[in-house]
């Protein structure tokens, strides 16, 4: 069976490091949302775990950008901001499609589809808010006014709700959903079948296969 490379090894490693640190951050953060969980906070050791995971969550992507391929990294960032007409069509067709409806109405998608793009954008924006407010809460107590700290706590929580809820969607669509059978595997092994690439990421498939032909010619 013909396969297409979807994620390079470094991308996959980055994804799973970020995913693991995100899970630690989310769970240790949730202890603050759930009074009945407070025993699980381990006399505050959850706070230490939160800080360690935060450092990994922030530093690993930064190192990836600094020491990796700059144009590739910027390409990832640009993906989040490239929106067009097909995205509107996707939003119209997606609810039916993801509830098992007719796939033919779905517009052809790029390397990541509209939903993934929206999630990726949320990850970038929410992470920026979480990072800024988190740094304030961690290092700037007593330096900035109480009000700044107080609203940082508010924003930190708000950004987490947005990201956390969207993460649940991301998890289901990539790991559990019958319409996305090769999604999880692609982030583990890096490859998808050509058939899957064509049906799920048509625009990207056409572009990569055209590139390949050009290279071979």
């Amino acid at each position, binding site marked *: 069976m013909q396969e297409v490379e979807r994620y390079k090894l470094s991308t996959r490693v980055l994804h799973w490091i970020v995913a693991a640190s995100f899970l630690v951050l989310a769970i240790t953060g949730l202890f603050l949302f759930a009074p009945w969980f407070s025993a699980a906070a381990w006399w*505050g050791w959850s706070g230490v775990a939160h800080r360690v995971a935060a450092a990994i969550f922030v530093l690993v992507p930064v190192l990836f950008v600094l020491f990796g391929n700059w144009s590739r990294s910027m390409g990832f960032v640009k993906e989040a901001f490239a929106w067009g007409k097909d995205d509107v069509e996707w939003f119209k067709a997606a609810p039916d499609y993801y509830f098992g409806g007719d796939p033919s109405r779905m517009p052809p998608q790029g390397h990541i589809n509209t939903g993934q793009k929206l999630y990726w954008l949320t990850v970038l924006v929410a992470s920026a808010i979480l990072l800024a407010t988190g740094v304030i809460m961690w290092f700037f107590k007593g330096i900035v006014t109480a009000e700044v700290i107080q609203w940082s*706590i508010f924003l930190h929580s708000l950004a987490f709700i947005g990201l956390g809820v969207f993460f*649940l969607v991301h998890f289901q669509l990539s790991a559990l959903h019958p319409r996305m059978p090769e999604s999880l595997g692609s982030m583990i092994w890096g490859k998808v079948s050509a058939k899957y690439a064509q049906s799920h990421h048509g625009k990207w498939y056409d572009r990569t296969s055209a590139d390949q032909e050009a290279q071979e010619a």
Partner: protein
Amino acid sequence: MAKAILYDATKCVACRGCQVVCKQWNELKAEFTENRGSYENPKDLSPETWIKMEFREIPRNGSVAWLFTRRACMHCTDAGCVTACPTGAVYHHDLGFVAYDKGKCTGCGYCVDFCPFEVPQLDGSRVTGLGRIDKCTFCTTHGLDRIGNGLEPACVKTCPPGALIYGDRGELVAEGNKRVAALGGNATLYGENELDGLHVLYVLTDSPETYGLPKDPKVSAAATAWKDIIQPLGWAAGGLVAGGLLINLIVARARQIRAEEEK
């Protein structure tokens, strides 16, 4: 029936007996002190210092007025720490004041961040985030509970000039107002209505600001927003999405299977 402490600044001689007995009763360690040009010591409240006397020299009528105040938890009715505490570790005691359960404390420090009087302290490191709340417990610390055993708080018990009185809050408000009327001038009773009523009332000879107290303390809107918006919103959003996803998974799987069977 709400209880309270009435502190009368005009009777206080700043002997700091309350500071000492607080450490003694609550088994708090002594701290190294340092001469900062005043009798005031240590520098501020800490996990080991829950009450501290403050000395102020204020120019008044061509002379200097030496003003004393008590700095400790004010035991607010509308308490920023109680509102902000995510785990319910900081709570209102049946008698109105603010107690806490260190066992439930995760050390998030929101009580510190949301206190209008900057009273609660964390007995730990700001870098690791390890630590737990400490502040005046109104002598209700588990195992050292004076109030529950029918005693008055240690600071009140020890106060030689009787500047501290413990009793029913209503009676103490009346007592404080009587005292303020007798003093006349700029004298005020602090704590009657501030933050819906403090459980530590101050008879002051001058405006609260003169004594370093906020004139109109308020609990930050961010605290209320966190408790009333963020926490419920978080659970509602998480619950709705999780429920929606479950339905989606069931429907999508069922239709997929049907589609495969029809092939």
